[in-house]
């Protein structure tokens, strides 16, 4: 077997799930690059590494399209946190979370943390629309200006969401109330067989965000990073106590024998 030096494994894995067009890539982009820019429909999954203190946190931005549904469980394997994302202006996107995405998280860690995130809050909520949240506002405005004055840039990397509604200050109808998300969070805990008392409370784990204005985005990611830290430390401790079998190694070995080629 050829020597394959292992890449330094990230300490924790965080996965973004949700229907297409809810803004998963935009959320992550807002957090990582401090910008809101055009994205296009994600293909497969995209892997990012985030340094959080001394820890490496890997973030998988997955495609929401049904086409890539089969890959979901692979991205979720061993996840320490899953961000289930919906669009506050689209009821169906919340329903899809329960119908399509929840079962994908079966491969996540048993102590995995779940967050429910309603994105595009700027479209329904004046508070999020006029977010003075961070350094981003002025920058964001310029972004929008650029987007509008440079259509050729857009056509190269098409997307979104200079939504006419939000530009004109008109607000869209909010289809998903916060209570709905809280209720879903309860059902998720039940699905996972978790005790509501022993788990993180719904009001901490249900977020409404706007990738466009930056509203609540940092809070979301940083809360989750802080919450996964204990599990990182526990895992590290366990590893020192009793070295465990690296599943990744086993899988590679069997993968080689079993399915060396599809053809």
């Amino acid at each position, binding site marked *: 077997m050829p020597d394959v*030096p292992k890449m330094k494994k990230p300490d924790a894995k965080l996965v973004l799930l949700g229907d297409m067009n*809810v803004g998963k890539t935009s959320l992550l982009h807002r957090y*990582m690059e401090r910008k809101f820019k055009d994205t*296009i429909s994600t293909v497969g*999954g995209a892997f990012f590494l985030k340094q959080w203190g001394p820890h490496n946190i890997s973030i998988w931005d997955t495609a929401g*399209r049904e086409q890539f549904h089969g890959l979901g469980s692979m991205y979720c394997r061993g996840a320490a946190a899953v961000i289930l994302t919906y669009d506050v202006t689209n009821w169906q996107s919340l329903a899809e979370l329960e119908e399509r995405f929840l079962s994908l998280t079966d491969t996540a860690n048993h102590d995995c943390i779940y967050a429910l995130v309603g994105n595009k809050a700027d479209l329904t909520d004046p508070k999020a629309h006029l977010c003075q949240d961070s350094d981003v506002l002025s920058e964001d405005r310029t972004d929008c200006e650029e987007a509008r004055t440079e259509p050729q840039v857009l056509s190269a990397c098409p997307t979104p969401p200079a939504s006419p509604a*939000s530009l004109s200050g008109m607000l869209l109808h909010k289809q998903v109330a916060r209570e709905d998300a809280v209720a879903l969070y309860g059902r998720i805990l039940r699905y996972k067989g978790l005790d509501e008392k022993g788990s993180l409370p719904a009001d901490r784990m249900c977020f409404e965000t706007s990738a466009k204005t930056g509203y609540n985005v940092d809070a979301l990611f940083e809360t989750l990073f802080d919450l996964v830290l204990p599990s990182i430390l526990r895992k590290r401790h366990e590893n020192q106590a009793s070295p465990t079998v690296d599943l990744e190694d086993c899988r590679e070995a069997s993968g080689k024998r079993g399915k060396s080629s599809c053809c």
Partner: protein
Amino acid sequence: MEVDHHKDTEGQAEETSDPPTESNPPADTLATSLCLLGNHMFPDQVATNACSSVNRSEPATLQPSDASVEDSGLDEGPPPNPGTDSRTQDSECQTNLAAHPAERVTEDAAINNAQSDSGEFVVTMLAKAKLEEQGIGVKGRSSPLLETGIQESPSFTSHRDEDVTADSWRRHRKHVFVLSEAGKPIYSRYGSEEALSSTMGVMMALVSFVQSGDNIIRSVYSEENTVVFLQKGPLVLVCVSSSRQSEQQLREELLYVYYQIISMLTQASISRIFEHKKNYDLRRLLAGSEKILDGLLNLVDSDPSFLLAAVHCLPLAASLRDSLSQILQKAITPNLVFSILIAKNQLLTIVQEKTVIEDARLAPADVHLLLNLIGASSAFQAGEIWTPICLPLFNPDCYFYAYISYLDPPDCTVCLLLLSTDKEAFYSVAECKRKIEEAMLAQNSLSLIAKAQSYSVSQVGVSDLRHFMYKPFDVPDNYRQLTQFTSPEMEAPYSSEEEKMRLLDLYRYMHSRIHSTSRPLKLIYHVAERETLLAWVTSKFELYTCFSPLVTKTCAITAITKLLRWIKKEEDRLFIRYPPKYSTTPNPSKSSRSSRSDQQDTTDNGFLSLL
């Protein structure tokens, strides 16, 4: 009764699934069906119009010298006579270049003849089909653009939201539609599929009508448009084009569209889906992929790689290309099968596993699909992508897993693509990238790649030569490997988009003549209005050249001799030679580089001996 009436009317609709001699009865039937459908959709005027304006294409086929049947539908003019089709007057010769005197003809008088726009039968019919705004099977996603913030950019939005009843919609140069056998819309290049559902229904009706007669509809010619049908499994692809390309060329392009769909879903899963549910809405699975198809069609129109079915690699000093290949060759992991390095959307090098794919060659079309996937996706510029992808010509039924990452953020011009057969291999494949990154840093490869660029035709040193495309059938030392071609930048007078397209159209015309099924040619000397072109195909290569208009035939031949010598001299730089292989099986073989010395002596590349 209806049928009898219309049988008198001769149809310009030509159906060519049978040998031409047998095509008459089906053509009649088809024309009848067109008229019937026309009558059905819009009772009086259009159908009558259409029927009265159709002509039989027969006279044209009688012309002994005419290889371009597509011009036969000149319906309003006088009966076609050999003189009006000036295309046939290009001097052509099978073997000897000097055998015929040059004849100066203006390019495509036929185009001018065909400008009146009455009797635009098929398109009229397709466009005027009653529009029903029904969101069949979209299940709450009928207006994702409004509901969700993730909207498409203005340019795309305008294409998708186009009013399909407007003239501007009908004037698009090339429409492409994909539908299911049940007539459900899957994709339209312009306008939304919902708005076009009844139009697509008409298309499906045409297909099934002809099918019911145990026949296959292949094309319909109207005065300005060629409608080409391609049926692949449960999918029907239709192209309506006013580009004057040949039917074969348009069909090839539809095939690329089909392959791109396969690359996302695999043939097996598409068949399975439609076996289960005939009226499945495939857009559910393709949602979000429209831009990849849009991008493909734009590339097909603007990049000659697709026409030539060959890949274009970035010219690079052989030593640099070799060192890059070696870097890729060393960074391997089990189940890795292809390592591909791309810069500025052109290939730098490809290294492949040798045992898994002993005899297989990566088809140019598969490479085109990969390049399009990368190009159509700006999302790839951030992070590392892991996605399933099928290479339809390699194996239409299985997925590879592609790792895609840019090596030079934030510029994002150099892209690494690693293909594995193992779905779970992301972390080990990502580790290969780190190794490649390190090695490239150590050798300063990125800055060397940044200096690489396409070349100018002036470097050839032939004064009248403006542009060329040269496709060797076998790059020396690259026997039966990837088909490649080389071509300089398009410079003045072909620097504007319009002029580029005009030159490409000329090349497409030359290509269609060379590859005409009814009358293939080996050599064409074509004097067009603003340039002179010479295309030449031998057993060793295919060559298209473009000269200034006043070049003489002798000059052109001398120029081509010089050009071929120059290419021979630059071969190492222009093409990927000695494609290295690696072995990711447990016992890496040492022979991966030996192929080079084995083939060192095959220096005869043939073309000089022909001169």
